[in-house]
């Protein structure tokens, strides 16, 4: 039964994405996991089918600014069982693109949004640095305003799509003395002299997405590549965090649900002590607990999503949804491994991947600790 939040159109989007995931993603997931990335062509395919444009207006090639349709897309993507695929597509469509769409000049939008939406160009957002994670204000990459261009120096780490991105929306210090009030966003294109990918990073999970370390050495970035106004970057970043965090919460819920489905199926088939595991109360109750946690997380996430799409202040609820959904995804995928016993520990069974993939949830896009900081900040004025 469809949730009240979604319309008939959204359910048709769901059906379409589900079909696509089933036919064009699921059969290749193991291959892509082993290769350490999904093929670049998948961006173009997702673009061609209109998925990357769900949250953008038609003038840039989208199908209308429909965040519920976007939510449906990410929920269904999670069903492919390899969270890196959605991470890669999402980093371009839901994380890099929105900075340009919401805050960029018309010229920047016309240059970068149509190719992002058609999947011809891949975007990335680069904020994190070796010495600046949760503490965004302490970034050390600098951009010196040279009149018609900026001179960028510094490095970025843990950047999803970093290795193959065609452009990187990069957080830089334009006023190093001003803390968070000195941050700006620059669109830096691949091939700009002085911009190099230092390496592709090896990760615990999200293995179908590439994660890079980027280096800028006297990198000349044209002045028109500034997103919005100088020294406003921190506020721009914070504003799109709501959507990024909602996407992470939605994916966490959908992935945890997948882990339950897989564990329940395994429990039906695995016979021990003369009966399937699913006949043992201990397994049944474990599954019931897992399902209740996921349903709670789903309700909270949908609530936050409904606030967000209605344009109301959703900061607290989004932080709660991201915190709760990602935390319980760790627990639920862990229990799913437990139900699988020794087989759950084997690479041959996908459940270990759900567990590994879930682990980033409480770290990326703002750690659980930062989520609590946000919630507490609203509670205690």
């Amino acid at each position: 039964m469809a949730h009240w939040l979604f319309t008939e159109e959204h359910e048709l989007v769901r059906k379409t994405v589900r079909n696509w995931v089933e036919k064009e993603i699921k059969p290749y997931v193991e291959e892509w996991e082993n290769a350490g990335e999904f093929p670049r062509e998948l961006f173009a395919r997702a673009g061609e089918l209109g998925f990357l444009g769900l949250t953008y207006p038609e003038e840039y090639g989208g199908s209308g600014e429909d965040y519920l349709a976007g939510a449906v897309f990410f929920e269904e993507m999670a069903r492919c069982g390899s969270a890196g695929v959605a991470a890669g597509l999402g980093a371009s469509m839901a994380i890099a693109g929105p900075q340009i769409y919401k805050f960029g000049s018309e010229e920047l939008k016309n240059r970068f949004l149509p190719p992002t939406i058609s999947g011809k160009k891949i975007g990335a957002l680069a904020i994190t640095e070796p010495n600046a994670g949760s503490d965004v204000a302490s970034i050390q990459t600098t951009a010196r305003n040279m009149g018609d261009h900026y001179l960028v120096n510094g490095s970025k780490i843990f950047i999803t799509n970093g290795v193959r991105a065609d452009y990187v929306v990069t957080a830089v210090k334009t006023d190093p003395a001003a803390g968070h009030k000195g941050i700006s966003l620059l669109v830096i294109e691949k091939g700009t002299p002085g911009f190099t990918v230092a390496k592709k990073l090896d990760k615990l999970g999200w293995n179908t997405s590439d994660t890079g370390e980027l280096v800028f050495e006297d990198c000349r970035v044209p002045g028109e590549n500034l997103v919005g106004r100088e020294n406003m970057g921190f506020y721009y970043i914070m504003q799109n965090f709501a959507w990024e965090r909602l996407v992470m919460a939605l994916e966490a819920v959908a992935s945890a649900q997948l882990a339950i489905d897989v564990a329940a199926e395994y429990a039906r088939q695995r016979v021990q002590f003369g009966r399937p595991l699913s006949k043992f109360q201990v397994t049944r109750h474990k599954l019931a607990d897992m399902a209740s946690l996921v349903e709670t997380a789903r309700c909270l996430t949908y609530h936050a999503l409904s606030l967000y799409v209605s344009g109301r202040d959703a900061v607290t609820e989004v932080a709660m949804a991201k915190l709760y959904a990602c935390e319980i995804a760790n627990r639920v995928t862990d229990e799913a491994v437990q139900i699988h016993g020794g087989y759950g520990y084997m690479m041959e069974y996908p459940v270990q991947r759900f567990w590994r993939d879930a682990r980033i949830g409480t770290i990326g896009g703002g750690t659980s600790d930062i989520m609590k900081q946000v919630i507490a900040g609203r509670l205690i004025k």
Partner: protein
Amino acid sequence: MKILVCLKQTFDTEAKITLDSNGKIESKGVSMIMNPYDEFAVEEALRIKEKGEGEVTVISVGGQQTQDALRQALAMGADKAVLVDPGEIELDEFSTATVLAKTIGGMEYDIILGGFRAIDDGSAQVVGRVAELLNIPVVNVVTKLEIEGGKALATREVEGGSEVIEVALPAAFTAQKGLNEPRYPSMKGIMKAKKKPMDKKTLADVGLDENQIAAKVKALSFSLPEARQAGKVIPGEAAEAAKELARLLREEAKVI
């Protein structure tokens, strides 16, 4: 070129079929899809339209939930939809074909397309019956269709090969797997599907009453296939196990 596509909403191929306490097929809680063979028909209609000029109208007989399948066709690119809701009565192939033919009789058309069968009851009768009622030719199980200058070249499956048939339009064709690879509905198409016309009619609107379409056949009972037996694992050394396997295949399964 006016193209009409008859389509049916069926159970999802993934759906688990169960019988209710009256021995009828339980439809509650089952997710529904457009009959996959009808999806080939919709796709073919769109391709014919895209090659030249034309208009694609999709037609279905069913309850209000059938709109989902029609909307999917609109999202794929069809221009208009017609839904005839016959109300709560038992239908057979005769009933459905009569309703469709009566509805289509009042419309302009050059080509009628439909799946050669539906994946649920699999009767493979409806489009043929519609063509008969409309007094136009029908070509079944088509795997390739070319339209030119008021006639069609249709390639169809025959035992062990294929045959090519030339037929003057208007004519009806039923789609077989292999005719094409249906497209996904486009996202823009989905968002616009609601704005496309969906003409909802009752039996009376098409000039019929329940007696005129009363089913001529009645299903007496339904039964589910027997549960599959668990597989057998033959233990032991490979050479010994292979011998035992060969023996079982010959003596028990009787396949070699």
